[in-house]
């Protein structure tokens, strides 16, 4: 499965993943703590400039940007209709700042680097019996099975189409779930043999 990460090198690729996440957390908190239009406009302008400075890499985020423009437009129009243009502007500026930086982080950070940061953040949970190192294994398993079950869904759909002449739709949900649960038991056995736990 493809990631949203862009291989086109940008200046932001060189910044460590932990630093980018910390900046995003601070920015997200900051824009929600202030309601000043000047501060929010400055923040949105900074985020927009930083995002545009990524050059060709931003083309990969087209679907995400379309969603952002659509959501911003809807919120803005709704508040104008409700005669609260300032509230609308505050919401849209907050949304632009945080989402643009979130997309920039996604475009310029490998998911393995982010996983390492998450594992580091979750490390204290070892004290309560959580195993952060399993996160990578579980993400890998999840991706493997996403592809596997999508193929299975299409196979069940094709079989249903052959039998009835119609798409399977919701009718193949139950057989898909049963096959999945049976597969889960097989995978659990394999994991047990492999890791002895």
């Amino acid at each position, binding site marked *: 499965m493809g990631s949203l990460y862009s291989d086109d090198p940008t200046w932001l690729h060189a910044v460590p993943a932990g630093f980018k996440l910390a900046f995003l957390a601070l920015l997200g908190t900051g824009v929600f703590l202030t309601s000043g239009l000047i501060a929010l406009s400055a923040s949105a302008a900074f985020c927009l400039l930083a995002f545009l400075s990524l050059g060709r890499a931003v083309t990969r985020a087209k679907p995400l940007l379309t969603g952002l423009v659509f959501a911003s437009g809807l919120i803005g129009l709704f508040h104008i209709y409700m005669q609260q243009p300032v509230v609308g502007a505050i919401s849209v500026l907050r949304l632009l700042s945080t989402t643009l930086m979130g997309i920039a*982080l996604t475009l310029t950070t490998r998911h393995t680097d982010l996983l390492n940061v998450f594992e580091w953040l979750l490390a204290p949970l070892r004290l309560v019996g959580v195993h952060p190192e399993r996160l990578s294994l579980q993400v890998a398993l999840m991706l493997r099975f996403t592809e596997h079950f999508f193929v299975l*869904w299409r196979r069940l759909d094709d079989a249903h189409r052959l039998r009835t002449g119609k798409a399977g739709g919701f009718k193949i949900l139950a057989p898909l*779930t049963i096959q999945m649960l049976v597969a889960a038991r097989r995978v*659990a056995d394999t994991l047990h043999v492999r890791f002895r736990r």
Partner: protein
Amino acid sequence: MNTSSLSIALVSLFAALIAVFGLIPKIDLPLGVPITLQTLGVMLAGCMLGPKRALQALLLFLAAVAIGLPLLSGGRGGIGVFFAPASGYLMGWPVGAFVAGWVMHMLPRATPRSAAISAFVASTLGGLLVVHMFGVIGLVNIANLTWEQAIMGTLVFVPGDLIKCALCATVVHTVARGLPDWRFGG
């Protein structure tokens, strides 16, 4: 069978199921309201896995989204989606799955019929009520809507979600007949 291995497998597989539901094209209701299957995944995770594993499956799924994998319906992903107006719904998924699992665990599920009825109740409380509650909180805080406006906005999706609760109950009924030894609700 070892519980730890089974947990890893089930958590990963249900996170994968929710991702698969995101790949399946959305279904549009006559009013133009889209139904995506991913909230059905939240309900199924709760009813099938029980509270703890369902919570883990949803957290794993959201972690995968956060690291940039395009797993949400429409190919969306990345940290940015957690700042969008609808992010309250996303935050509600793990809690909703946990509540659905807990309710399922508390209700009778000895026969396929009782399991299906319990699944309907559990998915309505966890997958519908809790998720929409978080969604409304998100709309109020991020889109700056009033509580009334946010509640009216979210009500549009309730008919579609009730259909999903019925679907979840149907799937649970079929699984209860196909895999009689399956422990619903953990």
